[in-house]
């Protein structure tokens, strides 16, 4: 595959689990500064696509190029260090650490064993934690134990932990699941803010929320792309209405 200007170029990506093709010859291209939303019915392969990109699942065939660098052969931590961040479906934070510590642990310095043993909490680190905490609206509760946060705050904290690493591609799996209406609005604003200088892929079911954030929408069905394009076009697509949105 030749080099492209896309941040992420997925081509002919296939993964089969015991013969079942969860993702089948998928092609997808993400632009710089694009916010792409992936929708589709349960079992369409949305989460599997994210798993493949971040290295949690190994592909059977095909290629994933991030800034023209092949990701399929890298291990998880190498993919993260290349600049890809991944948020999991259920909030995945360190409950026994404080908000501050959760963010600091995610700071991309001192990532080796000895680097972490001699890691110094410099002014830069503190400033970065502050900046991100402000972004995710948690500046006032840095000292709080993460276990005590509300569900919505946990989701934001995990997004903040990813932002600490300044990734160029951010992948969020259902970031507003279980959030109140107000929290959803705040999250939409947050996502619109943070996609200014990076590309974002979001998996989401909430159509109202998708409308607020999506630049482009990809509809997955049975591991294949059913439709792709602007939200209103996709919503009007006959096939999409049939298998997913309903009449």
């Amino acid at each position, binding site marked *: 595959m030749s080099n492209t200007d896309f941040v992420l170029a997925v081509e002919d990506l296939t993964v089969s689990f015991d013969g079942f093709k969860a993702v089948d010859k998928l092609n997808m291209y993400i632009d710089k500064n694009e916010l792409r939303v992936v929708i589709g019915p349960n079992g369409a392969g949305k989460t599997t696509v994210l798993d493949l990109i*971040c290295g*949690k699942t190994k592909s059977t065939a095909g290629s994933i190029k991030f800034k023209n660098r092949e990701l399929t052969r890298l*291990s*998880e*931590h190498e993919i*993260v*260090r290349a600049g890809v*961040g*991944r948020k*999991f479906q259920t909030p*995945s*934070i*360190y*409950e*026994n*650490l*404080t908000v*501050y*510590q959760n963010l*600091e*642990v*995610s700071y*991309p310095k*001192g*990532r*080796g*064993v000895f680097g*972490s*043993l*001699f*890691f110094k*909490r410099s*002014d830069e680190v*503190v*400033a970065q*934690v*502050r900046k991100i905490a402000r972004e995710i609206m948690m500046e006032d509760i*840095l*000292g709080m134990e993460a276990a005590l946060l509300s569900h919505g705050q946990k989701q934001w904290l*995990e997004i903040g*932990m990813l932002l600490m*690493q300044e990734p160029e591609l951010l992948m969020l799996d259902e970031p507003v699941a279980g959030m109140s209406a107000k929290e959803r609005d705040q999250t939409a604003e947050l996502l619109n803010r943070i996609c200014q200088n990076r590309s974002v892929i979001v998996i989401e079911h909430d159509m109202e929320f998708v409308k607020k954030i999506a630049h482009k929408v990809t509809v997955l069905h049975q591991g294949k792309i059913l439709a792709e394009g602007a939200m209103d076009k996709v919503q009007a697509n006959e096939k999409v209405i049939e298998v997913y949105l309903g009449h």
Partner: protein
Amino acid sequence: MNETLSKILGGKQGAIGLGILAALILVLLPLGLDPFRLGLVGKYLTYAFVAVSLVLLWGNGGILSLGQGIFFGLGGYAMAMFLKLEASDPVSTAIQSTPGIPDFMDWNQLTALPWFWEPFKSLPLTILAILIVPTLFAFLIGYAMFKRRVGGVYFAIITQAIALILSILIIGQQGYTGGVNGITDLKTLLGWDIRTDSAKYVLYYVNAALLIGCILLSRYVLSSKFGMLLLAMRDKEERVRFSGYDVSNFKIFIFCLSAMISAIGGAMFTLQVGFMSPTFIGIVPSIEMVIFAAVGGRMSLIGAVYGTLLVNAGKTMFSETYPELWLFLMGGLFIAVVMFFPNGLAGIYDKYAKKVPFLRKLSEESPKARKAETVLVETKEAGVKA
């Protein structure tokens, strides 16, 4: 420098806790106990090295090793091999058919010293072996398992199996290892008789100082970013991996460090008790050591030492009167601790210290300590702005 120092001491509260422990084992016990009882305490304190290593590995890292006896034993055997060679000089072994080799080799018809015994003629090489052989062994086990993401119960079972295999191997290779009796009749260290009362006092103090040193080292590790990552890994390993860390390397390192600390304990055991045998390697001692750490509090380095002292004192007292009941009692103790006091003695102290006025004063720092993080952040922030 001051920051590093306070990291090692664990703040004011940590320094006080360590001060009390140091006063107990360095002053009170040597003053209050006769040489025989103090010797027992010295022996228990060598187990405390293992308990401390388990606080690092299990309490903070969430990796339960049921084979720490392996490393305690390797350290102990390395020391014993040196002492045995010193005790087997040609003059005192003149009646053997091959003088100059350890007696058990002679009984097993060996006529020359096996090659792997050669380095143990030198004390510096022996000390190196005590520190490096167990660490290297832990590295091999850790590399093989953590790189393949073997963890949890499987890791516990495999370490237990290795402990069993190693003890069987040692028992089976009688000519090379002294077999089931172990390595006995150890007399001198570079000509210094380790069996006298005065030597026992010296060794007791060396042991206590090394133990405190290991606790300080462990404190440093736990207070660094590494320590925070250990807790993070225990909680959400996937999240750590997807934050750009190679999780297996961190696990291998903490396993190696815990092995080295255990090995120092083993070497000090041999010096103080005067022999080493496979009974300190197998499954039972390895599990006992987990119980020491659990009783003391698996998150507390200092608690682990108290846990070890207490359980062993109990063992000595009970097994003198009801030897056959002791194992049941210890099993019951373990179940009780896990069910009712998951943080062991340290947890009980934290919970009830507030009710005693004097102790409350000491522990009043803890809510502040929690806030200190924010204060630190704020002061640093102010510095950035200025």
